[in-house]
C-alpha cells in the first residue's frame, strides 16, 4: 500500500524536476502578488501588519490554483492516467501519491518562502513562525480539495475557470483559520487553536479527498 504511494510520488517528483518552469512560475506568482501589496498600500506598518495574514493566504490559494489544472490533465492526454487507473491497487492510493507530490512541489515552497515575504509586512518573529506553520499545515488540504476539482473538470473545455469556481469556495475554511492563526498571534492570543483546526482539516482532506477524486476520475475515464 505504501509502496504504490511512494512510487507515484517518485514519478511525479521526477516529472516536476524535468519541468521546473511550472514550479518556479507558481512560486514567483506568489512572491510578486504578495510584494505588490506593500508597494500599493504604502509604508504604514500598522495597516500592513493587519493586512499581512489575509494577503499571504489569498496569494497562497491562488498560487496553488495555478498548478491544479495540470494535476491530471497531462496524464490524461498521454494515456498514463489510464495505466495508473489499471495499476493493481485502489485508485485512491494512486491519487494520494499524486496529491502528496503536488503539495511537495506547490505547497512546501510557499511555506519556505512565506516568512521572508512576511518581513515586508513588518510581522514579528512569533507571527512569522505561526504563518509558516499555518501554511505548512494548511496547504496539503488545498492540494487535496483541489484534486477533487481537477478530476471533476478533467477534459472539459475552459476547465480552468470552472475549476476555480468549484474549488475556491471550498478553500474558505482553510483561509479563515490560516489567516486567523496569524491574526490571533499578532493580537497576543496564541494561534494554537487555529493551527490544530488546520491540521485537522488537512488530515480529513488527505483521508477523504483522494477517494472522491478517484470516483471522479473513473467517470472521466469512461
Amino acid at each position, binding site marked *: 500500500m505504501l509502496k504504490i504511494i511512494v*512510487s507515484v510520488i517518485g514519478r511525479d517528483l521526477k516529472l516536476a524536476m524535468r*519541468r521546473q518552469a511550472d514550479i518556479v512560475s507558481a512560486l514567483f506568482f506568489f512572491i510578486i502578488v504578495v510584494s505588490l501589496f506593500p508597494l500599493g498600500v504604502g509604508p504604514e506598518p500598522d495597516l500592513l501588519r493587519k493586512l499581512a495574514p489575509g494577503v499571504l493566504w489569498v496569494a497562497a490559494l491562488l498560487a496553488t490554483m495555478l498548478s491544479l489544472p495540470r494535476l491530471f490533465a497531462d496524464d490524461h492526454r498521454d494515456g498514463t492516467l*489510464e*495505466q495508473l487507473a489499471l495499476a493493481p491497487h485502489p485508485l485512491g492510493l494512486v491519487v494520494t501519491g499524486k496529491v502528496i507530490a503536488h503539495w511537495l512541489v506547490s505547497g512546501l515552497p510557499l511555506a519556505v518562502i512565506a516568512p521572508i515575504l512576511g518581513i515586508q509586512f513588518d510581522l514579528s518573529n512569533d507571527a512569522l513562525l505561526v504563518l509558516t506553520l499555518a501554511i505548512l499545515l494548511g496547504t496539503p488540504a488545498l492540494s487535496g480539495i483541489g484534486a477533487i476539482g481537477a478530476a471533476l473538470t478533467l477534459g472539459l473545455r475552459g476547465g480552468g475557470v470552472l475549476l476555480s469556481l468549484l474549488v475556491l469556495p471550498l478553500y474558505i475554511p482553510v483561509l479563515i483559520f490560516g489567516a486567523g492563526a496569524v491574526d490571533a498571534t499578532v493580537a497576543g492570543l496564541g494561534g494554537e487553536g487555529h493551527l490544530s483546526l488546520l491540521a485537522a482539516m488537512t488530515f480529513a482532506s488527505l483521508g477523504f479527498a483522494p477517494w472522491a477524486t478517484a470516483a471522479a476520475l*473513473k467517470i472521466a475515464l469512461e
Partner: protein
Amino acid sequence: MLEAENLECVRGERRLFAGLGFRLEAGELLYLQGKNGAGKTSLLRMLIGLLPPEAGEIRWQGKAIRQQADEFRADLCYLGHLNAIKEELTPLENLLTTARLADETLSEDEAIDALEQVGLAGREDLACKYLSQGQKRRVALARLVKEKRPLWILDEPFVALDVAAVDWLAGIISGHLQRGGLAVMTTHQLVSIPAGNIRELRIG
C-alpha cells in the same frame, strides 16, 4: 479464462452492440473486427474494467471482474491508442516507471535489453520528446517484451509500425500465446500470428 456474456454497449444515444459474448481459453487470441465506430475500443475498455457495460458480465478465471478488481488488474496488461509514455522521461525511465507502478519486477538490464529488441539501442537516455512517432510507439511496445501477465488487451498495436516491427510484434504475441497467455486485440491489418489458436469476433 476470459468470458464475456450478453454484453451491451450504449454510447450517447446509440446502442453499439448487444448480446455479445465470447469465451477465451489459455493460449488463444481473439481478433476483434468491425468498421470504424462499431464499438471495438468500447468493448476493450469494458474488458479492462474502465467502462461499465450497460448489461451483461465479464468474468476472469470464473469470477466477475467487478468483484476482484485489484486481482484482475494484476493479471492484465493493456496497451491503448495512446502510448502512455511521458515525454519528459527517457525510454528507460518510462519502462521502469511503468513496471514499478504495475507492481512488476523489471531490472535495469532487462529494460535495456527490451529497448534493444525494439530497435532503440543507444537512445535509452534521450528524453522521449525527441523521438519520432514510430519510435515512441516502440517505447510503448517495449513493455510487452518482458511482460509476464497472462491477459494482454491491445488496441491497434500494429499502427505506425514498419514491416519489420510488425513481424517482431507478431512474434512477441505468439510467444505470449505459447506460454499459455491470452490476448484480445483490434486491428485493421490482418497480421498472421504464427502460434496459438486464433478466433475472430466481428462487431456491428
